[in-house]
């Protein structure tokens, strides 16, 4: 459903992504790993449309997205969370979720449930009830990450891309989020792409893992295969 063809991106003379070829299947749980600076965030910026001046093509359900700006891609069903949370600071947690529900979700995708109810459901799923009506400035670092993920879920996406949603979370909180994402994937069959440095989380979550290094895909396979690839070991551990 998501096809990336020969995608490259340079920042000035620096090549952040080169010639990426990737197909993501409907309902797939895909892990995206790679050392710092390998281009993971840049790749999802290209997919979500925040970066548009890339070379190559991004197709979604057969449609070429290249000319579509980010909000149109969001409306097509591509949603992403931000590695460094970018909450709407003048709003409460609940109001943060109402923005995508009001702007990105098509009326018939709401299935007759009001956007307020939808927001409350997501807030409940992510255990943010206590903070629902508080401004985001009152959130802890962890709650901030949960809000980031919750807001991405509120787009009601077909593809959800989470960019290090679990950094800094405790082991049990990681399990909670994993459970939420797996349930979401199994009940709604949405595709989830997870960028994560916590190996235990990606490996248990993903059906398939790809590893980026210096802007190239150096491994693509089941978690077991990828972790045993010499190039991956080398990328992570050095020579």
């Amino acid at each position, binding site marked *: 459903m998501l096809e990336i063809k020969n995608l490259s991106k340079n920042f000035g003379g620096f090549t952040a992504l080169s010639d990426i070829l990737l197909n993501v299947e409907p309902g797939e749980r895909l892990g995206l790993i790679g050392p710092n600076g390998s281009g993971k965030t840049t790749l999802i910026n290209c997919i979500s449309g925040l970066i548009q001046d890339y070379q190559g093509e991004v197709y979604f359900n057969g449609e070429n997205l290249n000319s579509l700006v980010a*909000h149109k891609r969001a409306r097509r069903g591509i949603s992403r969370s931000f590695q460094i949370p970018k909450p709407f600071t003048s*709003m409460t947690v609940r*109001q943060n979720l109402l923005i995508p529900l009001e702007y990105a979700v098509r009326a018939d995708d709401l299935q007759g449930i009001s956007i307020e109810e939808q927001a409350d459901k997501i807030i409940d799923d992510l255990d943010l009830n206590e903070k629902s009506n508080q401004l985001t400035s009152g959130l802890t670092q962890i709650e901030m990450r949960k809000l980031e993920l919750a807001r991405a879920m509120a787009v009601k996406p077909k593809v959800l891309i989470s960019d290090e949603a679990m950094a800094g979370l405790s082991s049990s909180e990681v399990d909670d989020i994993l459970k939420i994402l797996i349930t979401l994937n199994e009940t709604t069959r949405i595709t989830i792409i997870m960028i994560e440095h916590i190996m235990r989380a990606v490996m248990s979550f993903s059906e398939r893992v790809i590893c980026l290094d210096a802007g190239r895909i150096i491994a693509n396979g089941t978690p077991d295969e990828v972790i045993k690839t010499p190039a991956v070991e080398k990328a992570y551990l050095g020579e």
Partner: protein
Amino acid sequence: MSRNRFYIIIGALLVLSYLATHFVDNQYYFFAGFAILQLMVMALAWNILGGYVGYVNFGSAAFFGLGAYSAIVALNLFDASLFAQIITGGCFAALIGFGTGYLTLRLRGVYFAIATLALLVVSETLIVNWEFVGGAAGTYVLPKKNPTILGVLVVGKQNALFDNYKELLFFLMCLIALATIIICSLVENSKLGRGLAALRDSEEAAESMGVPTLRLKLFATTLSASIMGVTGGIFPYYMTFIDPLSAFNLDISVNALAMPLIGGTATWLGPVLGAVVLGTLQQIATVTISSEVNLLIVGLFLVAFVIFAPSGFLGLIEKYWKRGD
């Protein structure tokens, strides 16, 4: 405040302002009132972009001046009525606002701020060199004799809606101010307003959450500019004379931005409060000291508020309110 009560108060204020033109004799109040209301409308217009969206506009005077001069062009070409002049001012400023926005809003805030300043300089220079509208020397606007609307005499000594032009213009400015307040409150409480707030907080996040940020910014710029143009359109009539120096005066830009910052930028109440308090102070200072100190007053207030109360009067009031609980 419920919606109904809000509209009832607006309606009552409008009736009150009309009654005032009949029962208040001292013409000074209409003169001063007009000045304060003009500040208020400029502040509300600035706040649509500066407060709701967070894009600083230094070029309010450009849209104001272009509104004023397009009204002059309409007058010189078509002998346009006051009403037509006001509409012309609003439409032309909207057009220029849209164009400026379209060219610069893809860029980040600083570029937009610089572009608005440049627009001010460019428009003034153009007008100074355009003899058709009076050039640097300016031009006079002679109020029309016995204007009528739908067969009713608007200004005249007998059986007219208003005794003189000062009163008519004061009433019109009230009408414009109240209409602007309604527009601002509608924006704030709409999907549009929520989208603007999202984009002010984080443009990237808003865009990724489905908010068409460029379109919303363009809309806000156009709306803001058109309201500024409307105040410009009525201005030559009020002064009966207009020259580039008064139409494109940087004081206007400074006032338009200072009033909301002093009053509070979150809702329409902030600019209104800022304009009433500072506008009144300015009028008192003009009478008792000299109009030269006006900008000084604004400047001092602005510095004080930016440092000690960044969310303005409203922020201060809210703080004491909470403390009282």
